[in-house]
């Protein structure tokens, strides 16, 4: 390049201020660009999550929301009303019973079936068949699960027929209609519908455990049970903890299945927080109390979600 050419180039160079503003614009564009890519997700999150959650939380501090144009701010009064409501207290008790029963049974059944499905004594074909059968309950929609179990547990249904034929009972038990058995019945239904998810997750976890560990345990003379308690369970611990926390969150929010089988009855024997919330909103038009109940459940779920996230972070 000749000297005259360089001079000419220098003459056409933009002034320093222009360069600065150009750089600023470029920087702004760069920092704005990722937001632009994320905007569909951000908008969806705002519309579907942030705004509804904000509104529900806001409603919980007002009286007669939605049904009147000018609701009054009542502070924590709705929280006191809901927490002192005997039906809500029953709902909490039932939800805890239902959740803990379901989660423990999900865990035991899921682990048991996953160990069975991983057994080397099963051939490839039979393993696929069993896997397909065991996963079936998870494939059914809630409506189908509810109808199926209502037919099974009807006083003149399949289960009572079998029990009567076996001579175990003389009169059909009203599994879903008796206050004594309804909560157990809905818990059993929930266990049946939910264990396959545990099973598949555990199975994936078991298959990821190094075979060398089992090999060396065998060489050291460890029994099957010793291998299970000292290798399988410790290796699955992170999955078990994560799954249990997620299951507690999901099960405590259960509504559809209980609503379609018992509707929260008989009396209040299957009243859950989800059903209490629905009845407050669509039966009593008490949208503020429904929001309060929903916020209480949300706080519980957030608490568990925080624990879950921390565990995940520690695991990573």
């Amino acid at each position: 390049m000749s000297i005259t050419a360089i001079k000419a180039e220098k003459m056409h160079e933009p002034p320093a201020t222009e360069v600065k503003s150009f750089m600023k614009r470029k920087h702004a564009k760069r920092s704005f660009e990722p937001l632009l890519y994320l905007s569909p997700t951000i908008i969806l999150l705002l519309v579907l999550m942030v705004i509804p959650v904000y509104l529900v939380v806001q409603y919980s501090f007002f009286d007669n929301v939605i049904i009147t144009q000018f609701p009054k701010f009542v502070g924590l009064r709705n929280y006191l009303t809901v927490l002192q409501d005997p039906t809500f207290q029953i709902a909490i008790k039932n939800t805890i019973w239902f959740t803990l029963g379901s989660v423990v049974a999900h865990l035991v059944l899921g682990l048991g079936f996953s160990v069975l499905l991983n057994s080397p004594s099963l051939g490839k074909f039979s393993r696929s068949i069993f896997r397909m059968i065991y996963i079936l309950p998870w494939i059914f929609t809630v409506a189908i699960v509810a109808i199926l179990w209502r037919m099974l547990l009807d006083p003149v249904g399949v289960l009572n027929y079998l029990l009567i034929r076996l001579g175990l009972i003389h009169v059909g038990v009203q599994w879903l209609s008796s206050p004594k058995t309804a909560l157990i019945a809905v818990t059993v239904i929930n266990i049946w519908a939910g264990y396959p998810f545990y099973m598949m997750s555990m199975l994936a976890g078991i298959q990821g455990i190094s075979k060398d560990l089992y090999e060396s345990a065998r060489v050291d003379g460890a029994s099957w049970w010793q291998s299970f308690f000292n290798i399988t369970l410790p290796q699955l611990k992170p999955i078990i903890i994560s799954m249990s926390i997620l299951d507690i969150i999901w099960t405590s929010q259960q509504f559809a299945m209980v609503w379609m089988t018992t509707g929260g009855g008989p009396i209040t024997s299957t009243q859950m927080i989800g059903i209490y919330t629905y009845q407050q909103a669509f039966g009593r038009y008490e949208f503020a109390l429904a929001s309060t109940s929903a916020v209480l459940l949300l706080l519980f779920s957030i608490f568990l979600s925080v624990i879950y996230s921390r565990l995940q972070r520690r695991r990573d």
Partner: protein
Amino acid sequence: MRSKGKGFLASRKAVTLTLIATAAMALGYSAPAQAAPVVTISFSQWWEPELPTGALQALINTFQTQNPTIKVKLVSGPYSATKSQTIAGAATGTMSDVVGLDGAWVSDLVNQGALANLDNSLARVKFPVAQLAGKIKIHNSTYMIPVVNYIYPLFTNDDLLAKAGVTSAPTNRTQFAAAAKAISGLGGNVKGWVIPLSQTNPNGIQNDIMSLVWASGGSMLKGGKPNLTNNAAVKSVVTYVKSLWDAGSITPGAFTLSEPDKVTEFTNGRAGMMIDSLSHITQIKAADPALHFSIHALPVADGYTGKGGIPYASWGIGIAKTSKYPAQAAKLVAYLMSAAVNTKLSDLGHAFPGNTTSVPTWVTTDPMFKTAFTIYQSGYPANEFTGLPKADDLMLKFDTPFQSYLSGQITVDQLLATAQKSWLADF
């Protein structure tokens, strides 16, 4: 060369746009008085799925032909979905222009300010309101008009009655209890009476329990307020139902049975008697054409000879307060309530007309329907839940302690006191 071409294209576009704009303006100015714009109104209801396929749309098509400037969009769904949609619509101000209503929803929708005053709407279209069989009023203003009414008579499975040695349908409580016991004595899974007490839709309290109170001229209200305690009529009915329950004459599983389950139990021959809507006759006949059943007036208290209340449910109609086209909505309501259309609608649904001058022909086509008409004429329509605040919740608040009472956990006085206290809180 390229810039030249671009400039040429740009100038051509500008000229074309100018020409189009000028022509449009010229047309606009020179056009004679424009035809009235076509407006579309929505009409949400649960009737379409319950009527023969295409029947409601055919009536709407006729309305659209008569009113070329009004288009009607039918928003149809099952009863429960329509209810949730209406409540949500009222809350968000997005309710359909014309809404199918149940009397149990009216009070709450009026409190929300969601319904328009129909007195004004019908006056606007000069509808002869004297022809209306009923009006649901809140604070002296009409908010719902029953388009058609369904009564709830007693259905009996005549084969089961005959097998049990019952020669005629029961007319009083003693006969009814005896018949229920005799049918239950047949064994197998057969029971005398089926009642639905599910909490998902607790209308069994209205249709199957309180109906017995109204049938004997009783009432659950006094001066428009709950009157459950110190009410002999209500107390006698609940103790009577309990006696049938204890005798094993009622279908097991009642606490989780809903109205469709009740109809299924009856259609399958597992229940000898039920109190049910006339609208289910077609459904029962379709499900089992060989089933021998008949309908009768509800059993009354022993020795009662006065006129009895006949429980009923209505397909009601109202107009949303937020409707942008109240005049067009009123026209549609007036059309559906006109004598000819109301007759047609009654015939299609086998219901009783909401227009007093309508003469349904279906009552003469089938002896069973003829009986229904006789029952209808022999008493008076009674449904005290219609127009009450939070009517569904009142039913639930009665249902829950009623289940406790039937289970033997509380006494009848505790049941009535609990229900009375919780009902008063809603008034």
